[in-house]
């Protein structure tokens, strides 16, 4: 908060002391609750349109030109729908779950920097805070699923809990590599560590071998954490109706959706911050408008990440539960642990060109071996117990 506070304190010099503080607190909050839900609303529209195009059809195009008012219509519809609570539901927990689903997702944005010095709260434990908060979201899923007194909800909740707990491990370990390279947990420092030799692009962690692996690991983990396709088994429609939010209707359902999408967007933002150089890009040091250019770069990268998510959702099939667990523990976890060791190697090798080659070779070899192992496990002949 310091940086915004300093800026505002400069503008309001001589005014009562509490005024800049209050503004410094109010502005980021208003920004978070104003801008990101708007992004959420239009993400749903873009997602529906893009998925439509992927599936050779138009997306929503009836409400307003190009369906531009569709999110508004959706919101109105959900607001006016009847709110149904199952008779046997645990009423209080049932009510609390959607509320809790949104809180962690909103809190996540507190540590995402959008321009130099412009981060809602500059925590020195930034990344750790993000992980701590994001695990709390699993509680909402569990509460919603358990309180509904519906077997599909409960199954969805169990799946959600198992999945989130499993994928958090490789995700956090992938982030540890970044923290080691940047030497700080603060998101602002991590972004700053990605400039190299005055160039705003070359230093992005995604362009280092370990950074690329970390990026892939983290992106997969983020996708699984926010339960998006191909990891949407907690709410797999074709298997368990809607999983933990089967028994939710009206605005409570909307809150679940809001929480889920906000978490996905926030995770995309954190991915951008950690691996894609955050707000870094050409022209961010131009006086006066540099900050806007930086914000532009950040939101551009954020948009690209969201689009990548949508593209993946439109393409990949849902994984099976056993594949999900096997993938997390047998492929992602060894890779992420190896990645940490490789970052250490990178740190202590002076010649960065040589280090690039060596680390790339190590990681490439590890990937090939892991692929061989997991493929060997996968193609074992299928036996049928009753059919033969």
């Amino acid at each position, binding site marked *: 908060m310091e940086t915004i506070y300093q800026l505002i304190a400069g503008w309001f010099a001589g005014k009562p002391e509490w005024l800049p503080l209050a503004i410094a607190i109010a502005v980021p909050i208003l920004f978070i609750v104003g801008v990101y839900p708007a992004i959420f609303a239009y993400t749903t529209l873009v997602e529906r349109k893009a998925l439509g195009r992927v599936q050779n059809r*138009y997306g929503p195009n009836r409400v307003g030109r190009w369906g531009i008012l569709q999110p508004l219509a959706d919101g109105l519809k959900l607001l006016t729908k009847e709110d149904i609570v199952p008779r046997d539901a645990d009423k209080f927990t049932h009510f609390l779950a959607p509320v809790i689903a949104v809180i962690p997702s909103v809190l996540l944005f507190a540590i995402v920097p959008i321009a130099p010095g412009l981060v809602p709260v500059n925590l020195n434990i930034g990344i750790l805070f993000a992980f701590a908060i994001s695990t709390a979201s699993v509680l909402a899923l569990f509460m919603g699923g358990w309180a509904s007194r519906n077997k599909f909800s409960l199954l969805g909740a169990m799946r959600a809990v198992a999945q989130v707990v499993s994928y958090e491990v490789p995700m956090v370990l992938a982030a540890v590599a970044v923290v080691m390279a940047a030497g700080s947990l603060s998101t602002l420092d991590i972004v700053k560590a990605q400039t190299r030799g005055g160039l705003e692009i070359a230093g992005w962690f995604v362009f280092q071998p370990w950074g690329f692996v970390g990026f892939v690991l983290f992106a997969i983990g983020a996708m699984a954490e926010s339960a998006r396709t191909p990891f949407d088994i907690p709410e797999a429609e074709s298997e368990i109706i809607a999983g933990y939010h089967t028994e939710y209707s009206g605005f409570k359902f909307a809150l679940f959706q809001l929480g889920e999408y906000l978490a996905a967007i926030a995770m995309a933002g954190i991915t951008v911050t950690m691996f894609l150089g955050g707000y870094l890009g050409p022209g961010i040091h131009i006086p006066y408008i540099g900050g806007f250019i930086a914000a532009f770069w950040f939101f551009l990268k954020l948009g690209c990440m969201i689009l990548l998510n949508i593209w993946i959702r439109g393409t*990949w099939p849902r994984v099976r539960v056993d594949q999900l667990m096997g993938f997390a523990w047998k492929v992602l976890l060894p890779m992420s642990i190896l990645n940490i060791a490789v970052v250490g190697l990178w740190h202590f090798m002076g010649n960065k060109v040589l280090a690039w080659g060596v680390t790339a070779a190590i990681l490439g070899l590890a990937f090939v071996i892991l692929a061989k192992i997991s493929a060997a496990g996968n193609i074992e002949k299928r036996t049928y117990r009753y059919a033969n």
Partner: protein
Amino acid sequence: MGFLGKGLFQGMAVTARNFVGTYFDRGTREKLVTYQYPEEKPPLPENSRSFPFLVYDGTPDAMRCVACKICETECPPQCIYIVMDRDEKGKPQQRPKVFDIDISVCMQCQICVEVCPFEAIKMDNDYEKSQYGRFDDLIEHLPDLLKSNEYYNEIKPTEAKAVDAKLKAEAEKKAKKGTSKPAAAAPAKPAAPAPAPKPATAPAGKITIPEDAPFTAEQRAWLAGFLSAGGVATSGTGVSPVAVAETTGETPVPLPEATPAAEAPAGGWPWHDPGLGMSQRMDLVKAAPLADKLMAAMAQTDCHACGYDCRGYADAIAAGSETDLSLCLPGEAETAKKLEELMKEAGKL
């Protein structure tokens, strides 16, 4: 070169191609297959069908339907309701006054089309039938059902052409043959059981159209012209309609002038009224000859389902040239039973 996850990227290339392709589709519907329904409608294949409609030639008054009620009888879910039209004197007109189809019940089976001997009912392909009411709004009445032959030609050109050609051929044959009055009116040797060709019978002299014959003014005018043109003669070859049907495989031409009203005595046939109940008709016909009794037992819609008109069928049975007593479709089991009863009474069975 294969590597773990190769298929995933190939899949993403496919979806990307589809995504981009939709923006360059330009109406070929190769990538963007959607028809935006209310604005764009996909062309319907000729053989698509929705609900039945009634065909008319020229003006809606000249509908082909003669209210024979065969379709009403045959419709599996019983969704057709027909009331025959009558003039002021209560004489049946050969046209429906009420013709309702409940499209919430109709299962679009096309059976009504198959059984109609007059090519009067055909399957439509208009599927936009939603209504605001659940009950009365879903019943189609006569005005909704009537559609022109041109419309029929438009939606199903091949089928309609075939129907038109058939009707035309029949009309021509009819014109050649003169009247289609059944030649079996005067019984031949009663002992002859086989439906062998019978000698021609003399026409009943000059034929006038009785006042109460069930014709519309238009039909009457046409018929008068037709008769005065000298067409009323015995059928050229002296072959009975049964034989015609047997040799050509066709039902006798079902046109309005086929009504045997010409043979009715001056007082008409009081029982020739499908609106009456069976017992009433039997009362009226008590003193009449067997053929009349048989006729009165029929549904008397002159639908030609049996291969005759009602008069012809009754005469054929009485003469013994027709042994199947269950041919009267509109009369259903009641008629068949009554016919058998009457024949037994007369000692002919």
